[in-house]
């Protein structure tokens, strides 16, 4: 079933409503999009499901759209159908494209897979299947990913009533060993086949869900040969809270409260992304003071996150002492946060149109004390852990990811930059003050665990540089723009991204002009990092899985949104 142009949001006045009508040119998304009405408005080009494969292959091959930035499942209702929005970017030319496709068959929604073109699509399509029930034909592993295997129905559909069919189950979650695969036959029928995930005689070890070094409730099934890892099968969703679904019944200010609880080490940046998305959609310009404050806060948060990265890596590798050195320094940042924001982890600071409260009178002083303190103490990290021959041997050459792999898996942030991929959103799509401050994008080429660790250490220093440039020059101005009591976002589909602590954190907002978002999707920074674990770990040892898992730096609540 082809249902192009089914969404009124994307049918501009005067556009032909005829099925199959295709816009002539691919419209790039933000920031190059025309400034009206909002600079982050992305109008996805509609592609019919039948033509999707061909179009995708063309984009992948001919236009070198090698980075699948975001893949969002959508439910546009009875008439709009179930569909997907794809955000693509070419790492070579920087060109960006958004596409969408949909099917109105709600009983048997089939769409072609793109998981063979972009590795990351594998896990994204599983997510869409899990929440919307869209079956991607040709996908090799169409299992549920977040929900329980015995879940009835698809919770993100607008017409679903999850509580009716899914009472609180008191039984253990069954885990299937068979990966279903749906293939589209030549005659148009869909055939279901199943392939076992692990063989009969495989030695499979469960790492998690309760495990000291999975950084949260994450579950890996690992096939071992001796101590060598042959396959990693991540099982997600143990702490999935359905934040995206919750958002659909919350007003815009209320949705903000949940962003701090996604990646709790990127609370500032997550909330910044959502606020920015809503502000840009509404055409609100925040004052320069707010921009300065947000930039400084984002960078403090990044330092905080990277210190915790170091600490946890030490802990995972058995250097408990260095772990506490990191925590000692992180405490300083948390104090700075607490004084201004009133919270340490759940910061609750950015608001639509500004920030919750002006910076505390002590803020500038404390931050300026912190910069030399951190520059001095980071040397200790190198002395006690990073330069240590044991760590070097454990990290160098372990879990090497090539540039092609990280792009295909969409591993943004430090993990991608360690493999030589320039993916920093602060450089790609400058926001807040990042266009005006002078900073380097830290990249390395080795792509191994050690490079990933060093990227973070160098980014701490670079973040300190950014803060140093800004902290003395915070201009006067209001810290909160005047907003209407009830915030409504104009109709449209919007995408904004910030550089979170561990990669690109994107917000896709589809509004129908209500005070509630119609759909609010977060591009998780952690999901690609978990998806890449199989590739990164295969052939390494169990101990290396810990190193790799520590250095790619995922945070579970961000994966299980």
């Amino acid at each position, binding site marked *: 079933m082809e249902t192009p142009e089914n969404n009124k949001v994307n049918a501009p006045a005067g556009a032909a409503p005829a099925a199959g009508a295709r816009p002539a040119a691919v419209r790039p998304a933000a920031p190059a999009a025309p400034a009206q009405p909002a600079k982050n408005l992305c109008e996805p080009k509609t592609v019919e499901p039948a033509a999707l494969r061909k179009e995708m292959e063309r984009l992948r091959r001919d236009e070198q759209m090698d980075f699948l930035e975001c893949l969002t499942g959508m439910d546009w209702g009875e008439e709009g159908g179930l569909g997907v929005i794809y955000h693509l970017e070419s790492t070579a030319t920087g060109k960006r494209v958004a596409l969408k496709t949909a099917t109105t068959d709600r009983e048997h929604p089939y769409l072609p897979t793109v998981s063979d073109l972009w590795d990351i699509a594998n896990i994204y399509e599983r997510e869409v299947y899990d929440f919307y029930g869209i079956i991607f034909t040709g996908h090799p592993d169409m299992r549920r990913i977040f929900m329980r295997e015995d879940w009835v129905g698809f919770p993100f559909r607008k017409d679903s009533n999850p509580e009716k069919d899914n009472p609180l189950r008191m039984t253990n979650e069954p885990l299937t060993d068979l990966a279903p695969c749906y293939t589209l036959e030549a005659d148009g029928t869909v055939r279901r086949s199943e392939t076992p995930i692990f063989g009969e005689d495989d030695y499979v070890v469960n790492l998690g869900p309760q495990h000291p070094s999975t950084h949260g409730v994450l579950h890996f099934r690992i096939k071992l040969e001796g101590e060598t890892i042959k396959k990693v099968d991540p099982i997600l969703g143990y702490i999935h809270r359905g934040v995206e679904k919750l958002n659909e019944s919350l007003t815009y200010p209320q949705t903000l409260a949940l962003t701090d609880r996604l990646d709790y080490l990127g609370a500032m940046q997550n909330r910044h992304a959502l606020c920015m998305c809503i502000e840009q959609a509404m055409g609100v310009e925040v004052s320069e003071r707010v921009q300065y404050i947000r930039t400084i806060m984002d960078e403090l948060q990044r330092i905080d996150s990277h210190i915790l990265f170091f600490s946890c890596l030490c802990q995972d590798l*058995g250097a408990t002492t*260095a772990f*506490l050195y990191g925590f000692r320094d992180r405490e300083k940042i948390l104090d700075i946060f607490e004084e201004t924001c009133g919270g340490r982890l759940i910061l609750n600071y950015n608001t639509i149109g500004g920030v919750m409260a002006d910076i505390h009178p002590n803020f500038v002083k404390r931050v300026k004390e912190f910069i030399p303190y951190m520059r001095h103490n980071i040397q200790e990290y190198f002395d006690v852990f990073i330069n240590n021959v044991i760590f070097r*041997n454990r990290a160098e050459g372990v879990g090497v990811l090539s540039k092609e792999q990280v792009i295909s898996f969409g591993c943004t942030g430090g993990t991608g930059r360690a493999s030589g991929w320039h993916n920093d959103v602060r450089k790609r799509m400058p926001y807040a003050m990042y266009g005006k401050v002078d900073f380097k994008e830290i990249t390395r080429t080795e792509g191994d665990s050690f490079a990933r660790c060093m990227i973070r250490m160098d980014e701490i220093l670079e973040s300190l540089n950014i803060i140093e440039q800004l902290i003395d020059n915070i201009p006067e101005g209001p810290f909160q723009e005047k907003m209407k009591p009830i915030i409504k976002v104009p109709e449209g589909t919007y995408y904004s991204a910030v550089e979170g602590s561990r990669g690109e954190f994107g917000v896709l907002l589809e509004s129908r002009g209500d005070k509630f978002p119609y759909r609010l999707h977060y591009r998780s920074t952690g999901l690609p990092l978990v998806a890449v674990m199989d590739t990164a770990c295969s052939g390494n040892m169990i101990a290396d899985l810990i190193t790799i898992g520590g250095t790619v730096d995922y945070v579970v609540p961000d994966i299980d949104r």
Partner: protein
Amino acid sequence: MFDFSIVSQWIHGLLTSVMPEWAAVLIECVLVALVIITLYAVFAIALIYFERKVCAFFQCRIGPNRVGKWGLLQVFADVFKMLTKEIINMRNSDRFLHNLAPFLVIVASMLTFSCLPWNKGAHILDFNVGVFFLLAASSIGVVGILLAGWSSNNKYSLIGAMRSGAQIISYELSIGMTMLTMIALTGTMQLSEIVQQQADYGWNICRGHIPAIIAFLVYLIAGNAECNRGPFDLPESESELTAGYHTEYSGMHFGFYYLAEYLNLFITAGIATAIFLGGWAPIYFPGLDGFNDVMAYIPGIVWFVGKTVVVVFLLMWMRWTFPRLRIDQILSLEWKYLVPISMLNLVLMALVVAFGVHF
């Protein structure tokens, strides 16, 4: 120097005067066993407290400070808690072996513990192949660990146990080699004799100069690995295998592993003291007679425990500084570095002894 054998002979004489020889020996055996077990428990508790405090200070913390003054009673509280815990038997585990394993570990540890020369004349087990016995007895522990991993019916435990087996058996080699080096210097395998020589001629680490120092360092590393302590703690490697071979143990069965770990640390340090650092022999500087006399007044047991605690501190310092190695790195460290070094060192020591260039 006070000779403890005066006391033991006096007790023996007292007992034989009122009862037949065999009964006296029997009572002495029981007494010694009681003393050993008490000492074992006391030292374990002291060491756990010591480790927790030392580790805390390395980590910018204060450590236990709530139970009792400076947290002194913390470990007692922990032990009582552990005693009250249920010992859980796993379904599908090999119950007999599962229950036996901790005892093997603790027996091995106690046997080695009884070899320590505490003072002049105060040895529990002392015979002419003492060093040899020591090595043999300490190897029983690995059987306990392997059994624990095997019988738990847990994949983590099994991997931990296998790692432990590979590690301990490898490092036994270095330990044996360094001991051999020192035996080449002293010419005896009897621990009391080794220490006595050091009391007469000076500490082995000075007597044997370069080869002895190398042997001491190699021994420290290998000894640390023998106790499965960080950075060689990968049989239990908390962040990978949750708790390795003792994942499935609870209550006092786990407590035995815990105690054995700390006691093995003490024993390793104690042996290092006995073989390299002069055991109960006091510090002696030729020429400084007044100083030497004062030092000689301090009882031997104080010297022994003092030196051992210093070595224990060294080992803890290492543990709380370094990250954990990986299993292949552990083995390559042993086979590519420690074994060749200690072999060369043995040759070096042989030359030193043959040409008489030691002190």
